[in-house]
């Protein structure tokens, strides 16, 4: 095919309505639709459709047995006015997310930045040390052994030995300790995708800018970070934030594995647990859908908020 015919094929936009042009373009690029079809069909079926269905079901009393009735906002009203455990779950989710999200984000960035100037081989080893906990599956269960509730637990035995306590602490069965411990474990597994993205982003900053900066009077590494590195990393900072926030909201499974379900006094009960309780165990699909919709809105909302904040840092 010569170049001329290729140019002829591209549809000129004038002399046509928007609709006609769109249809022409769609016809011309039919291959593209074939290419995205398998992915988009599966994605629609298992990501988009579940969200849409949740929204629809959340206004009904669907319970898998009877034909659902439309109940307006009853589920939402019940959640906020009649369900104390849900409010506990909201509180816990926020505590969890507000601590784990930002701390894991900062930790990922700082560690990536600290190791940026190390020689490549050493950097690779240090990267592995920090990244390993997040890819090692169930390895976080070791915290149960370390913080075991009897005196055979390493932490308890050390505390007993040093005389801080006289009785072993039931760490994972004590409402006072569950939340802080789960947060620590969550942080331990949180140096994941955003960490790697930051390492790559830091490597990608043009080195000559640092030299130019040094000539222009950048005095120390902190000024360099603020005036040169961060403005160069806007897109990576954004991507990392989304990974960190979504991750912080998704730690429910870790909590269940560590503290059981439900946790003592609902001390580590999150919205995700509440969702699973009503959807997965009691089959109140309508009610659990309302929980899912709220969780969805909270996640999207916090991501949007953080995106706005980061857009200001990056510029």
């Amino acid at each position, binding site marked *: 095919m010569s170049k001329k015919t290729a140019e002829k094929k591209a549809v000129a936009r004038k002399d046509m309505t928007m609709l006609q042009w769109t249809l022409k*373009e769609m016809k011309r*690029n039919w291959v*593209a639709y074939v*290419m995205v079809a*398998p*992915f988009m069909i*599966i*994605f629609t079926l*298992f*990501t988009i459709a*579940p969200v849409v*269905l*949740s929204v629809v*079901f959340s206004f009904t009393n669907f319970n898998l047995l009877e034909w659902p009735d439309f109940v307006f906002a009853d589920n939402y009203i019940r959640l906020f006015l009649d369900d104390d455990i849900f409010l506990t779950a909201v509180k816990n989710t926020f505590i969890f997310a507000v601590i784990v999200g930002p701390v894991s984000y900062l930790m990922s960035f700082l*560690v990536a930045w600290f190791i*940026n100037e190390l020689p490549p081989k050493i950097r*690779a080893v240090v*990267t*592995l040390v*920090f990244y*390993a*906990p997040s*890819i*090692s*599956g*169930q*390895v976080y269960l*070791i*915290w149960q052994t370390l913080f075991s509730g009897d*005196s*055979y637990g390493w932490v308890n035995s050390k505390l*007993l*030995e040093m005389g801080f306590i006289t009785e072993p602490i039931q760490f994972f069965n004590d409402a006072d300790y569950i939340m802080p411990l789960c947060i620590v474990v969550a942080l*331990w597994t949180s*140096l994941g995708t955003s960490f790697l993205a930051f390492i*790559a*982003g830091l*490597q990608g900053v043009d080195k000559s800018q*640092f030299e130019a900066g*040094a*000539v222009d009077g950048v005095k120390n*590494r902190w000024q*360099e970070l603020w005036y040169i590195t961060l403005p160069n*990393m806007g897109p*990576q900072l*954004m*991507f990392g934030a*989304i990974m960190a926030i*979504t991750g912080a*909201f*998704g730690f*429910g*499974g870790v909590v269940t594995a560590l503290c059981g379900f439900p946790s003592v006094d609902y001390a580590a009960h999150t919205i995700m647990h509440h*969702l*699973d309780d009503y959807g997965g165990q009691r089959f109140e*699909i309508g009610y*659990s859908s309302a929980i*899912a919709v709220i969780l*969805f809105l909270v*996640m999207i909302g916090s991501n949007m908020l953080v995106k706005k904040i980061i857009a200001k840092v990056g510029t």
Partner: protein
Amino acid sequence: MGKKLRTRNHKVVLNRSRGGDAGITFVLGILGLFMFLPMVYVISQSLKPLDELWMFPPRFFVVNPTLKNFTDLFTLMNTSLVPFSRYIFNTVFVSVVGTTGNLFFSSLAAYAMAKIKFPGGKAMFKTVRTSLMFHATVTAITSFLIMSKLQWIDTYWARIIPAWATSLGLYLMKQFMETNVTDAVLESARLDGASEFRTYWTIAMPMVKPAWLTLIIYSFKDLWNAGASVYIQSEQLKSFNYAIQQVMAGGIKRAGAGAASTVIMMMVPILVFVISQSNIIETMGSSGMKD
């Protein structure tokens, strides 16, 4: 890198105070210990003989290392109701088929979204990108209903097919193609009469090797680490990780075998990462989100 730039003959001197270096090394050391010690403890536990596992006061490091926990684990495996090889097969089968499909479908869609301008392409990508903002727990219940409507409950498909379309896989692949596959190369292939599929497979894919390695690792890691699934009820279809958890749930006598199994499970993703680290970092270089 800083050291290379700290030349005295030239005027360029990057300011790196000794105090700052020391402070950073100290913080890095503390964080490093926090990350590393639990991992060491797992390995130490897996090598402890029974009397050391239940010694009071417990010791952090193993004194008389033994491989008995590992041999015990294999003995335990032989006594299970469903042969252990079946669990291993399930995990390997689901991981391999799931990862292969994900690699193929995600990269195909990513190629079309990155390199062909077609109505709706941008909107589709934006939708996929937005889905990175919520965790899959949100959709767990309704996904289950869809699965049961499709009658995929208690089949391999329930675990494999959703793994074929992961948002993060498509996102990373598309971003990487955008920066690393030049339009000029594709254009000349198209002018030579190559179909889009041919261009995708023979020109674009070889140019994005780091991205597909990353996709393979991410997908494989998730499928490999998957434990009990709500979609699977038959013992014959359950995963290796689930079986391992059953071993650990066996109580005091199995603490050693449990630690041994954790070590075996964690070694696979770690080894895969060690081999492919530089490729993953390269892929992440184009992961940035612009708006």
